[in-house]
């Protein structure tokens, strides 16, 4: 189980010199659900991919429990960190249950195929994401929302201590947006950690233990929900068209507002 992920001063440039990260840092410990917010192009997804060890930062370091994430063998890394990508590049001709079973890859031995235990994990992961009914369908037949939930299910099946989730609610209806965040929050309550890139400030408000704000490749603010989802922090980042309110629980509400100022 991952206890502690630390990223310090990450910088990253894509080919052609596009600077995506220019000093991004974060610390995540067990039991934390960190929401990463920021405008389009602020480097959120690149940051997530660096944390996952899928991109190698040009400077800075990422460690899991003291070990450099880039140097970890891929299987070992996958046992500690699971990634939910924003989307898959192509329509897969793969059955949903087999796709989720792919999440068990790091746990399987070279000569061993999936055991009863692996299949049970796949089943419970699908159930957690309200997707068991599509287990026998092909990935290519699923709607965008169903596919998103299956991606989360695979990450759950991976049984990693840390989940890195890239915009999980993009194509989901409100009920399933809540369901996805609830299942992530449940995992965190069970002793894991999660970092979720999202544009939905209100889901972040309700579920995150901390909010991290990114701008121009830097992490500019990192703190409790109440301290970050405020006009003082968000207006310099997103601009003035925001309306701030409160849920009955007291948590902040932030919505786009086409006012006439």
């Amino acid at each position, binding site marked *: 189980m991952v206890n502690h992920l630390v990223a310090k001063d990450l910088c990253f440039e894509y080919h052609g010199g596009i600077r995506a990260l220019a000093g991004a840092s974060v610390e995540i410990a067990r039991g934390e659900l960190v929401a990463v917010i920021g405008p389009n192009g602020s480097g959120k997804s690149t940051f997530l*991919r660096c944390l*996952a*060890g*899928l991109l190698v930062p040009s400077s800075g370091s990422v460690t899991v429990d003291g070990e450099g994430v880039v140097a970890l*063998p*891929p*299987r*070992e*890394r*996958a*046992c500690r960190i*699971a*990634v939910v*990508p924003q989307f*898959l*590049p*192509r329509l*897969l*001709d*793969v*059955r949903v249950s*087999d*796709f989720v*079973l*792919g*999440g068990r*890859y*790091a746990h*399987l031995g*070279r*000569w061993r195929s999936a055991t009863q235990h692996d299949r049970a994990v796949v089943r419970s992961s699908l159930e957690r994401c309200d997707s068991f009914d599509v287990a026998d369908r092909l990935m290519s037949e699923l709607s965008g929302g169903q596919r998103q939930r299956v991606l989360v299910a*695979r990450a759950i099946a*991976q049984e990693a201590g840390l989940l890195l989730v890239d915009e999980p609610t993009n194509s989901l209806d409100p009920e399933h947006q809540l369901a996805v965040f609830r299942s992530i929050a449940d995992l965190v309550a069970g002793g894991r950690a999660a970092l979720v890139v999202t544009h939905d400030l209100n889901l972040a408000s309700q579920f995150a233990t901390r909010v991290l704000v990114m701008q121009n490749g830097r992490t500019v603010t990192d703190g409790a929900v109440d301290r970050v989802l405020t006009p003082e922090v968000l207006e310099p980042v997103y601009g003035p068209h925001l309306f701030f309110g409160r849920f009955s629980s007291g948590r902040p509400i932030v919505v786009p507002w086409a006012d006439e100022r």
Partner: protein
Amino acid sequence: MNPSPRRSRIFAASFVVLLVVLFFASTCIGPTVRFAPADAWRGILAMLGLGKPLDVATVQTILELRVWRALVTIGVGASLALSGGFIQGLFQNGLASPSLIGVTGGASLGAAVAVLIVGGYAPRLVLEHIDAGAYLIPLFGFIGAFATTAIVVYLASGGGRTSVTALLLTGIAVNMCVAGLFAALQSLTLANWEVSRAILAWTFGTLDDRTGYHAGVVFTGLALALACIPFTAVELDLLKGGESDAAAVGVDVARLKWTAIFAAAVSASAAVAVAGQIAFVGLVVPHLVRLAIGASHRVLLPLSVLGGAVFLLGAEFVQRWLLGDAALQPGVVMSLIGGPFFLVLLVRERREISAW
């Protein structure tokens, strides 16, 4: 990832039965002598040192030639199909084939150089130590094929990563260079009838006069590639979601690529080294197996091995049976049926092509 296991088992069993039947049929039936199955069996046992050879020595020799021919055919078909399975899995494209990474072109060049050496173009010192082209041509073919693939992979790799697109484009460019050199050799030797005929014949592919040496080469390549299956099959399945996605679930993508390219190169190189250019098997067999039983490489790769062996041995047997003395070289037959077949695949799969 898991197609119906029953269906794959039925396919595997049918392929094995077909393979045994075709092996015996190709041994018994031929242009000169026709063996009764019992005689053929006795002759084969004699080859293994288990009993007396057939009564007439020449007849035993004919049988042994046919056995080696059939074995080499099996090895070549299996190797080419397995190589194609690896390449198609790696490129994530059901219309890819081993020649993309330079195997065929490289083998042609290597074999042509060997023909030149045998044909007297090498310094006397080398020539004095060479008995026959029989050994030299496969060896140079293999070196040419493997070296060309290595050059393609090396040039396509930058910063420790090998992108599949770069591999494809580099393969096309290197293939052009190799084809140019090959054409130059052909052109330079045009006046030497013997040599230019030998080079030309090699490009048609041949399975005649094969010996234990050829079988040894092709089955060594096949065995090395088979040994790579456990390290690549599940991983190639996971590659379907893209390289980054595979890496996220724990696949060592760089190692997967190297292993798959090595397996594809070593098996196809050995096959073309002993049999010359035989196109099409590496493309169509894994493609058809995928259509029939699904795309899981754990099943696809082993079944391609069996399917490739059955396909080439079957095609060879049928055409030699039908055409007799007029039988064509295997490479020619494969090209003749391969081109139209490839067109049919393309038309059928327009949807897939539009996604290239």
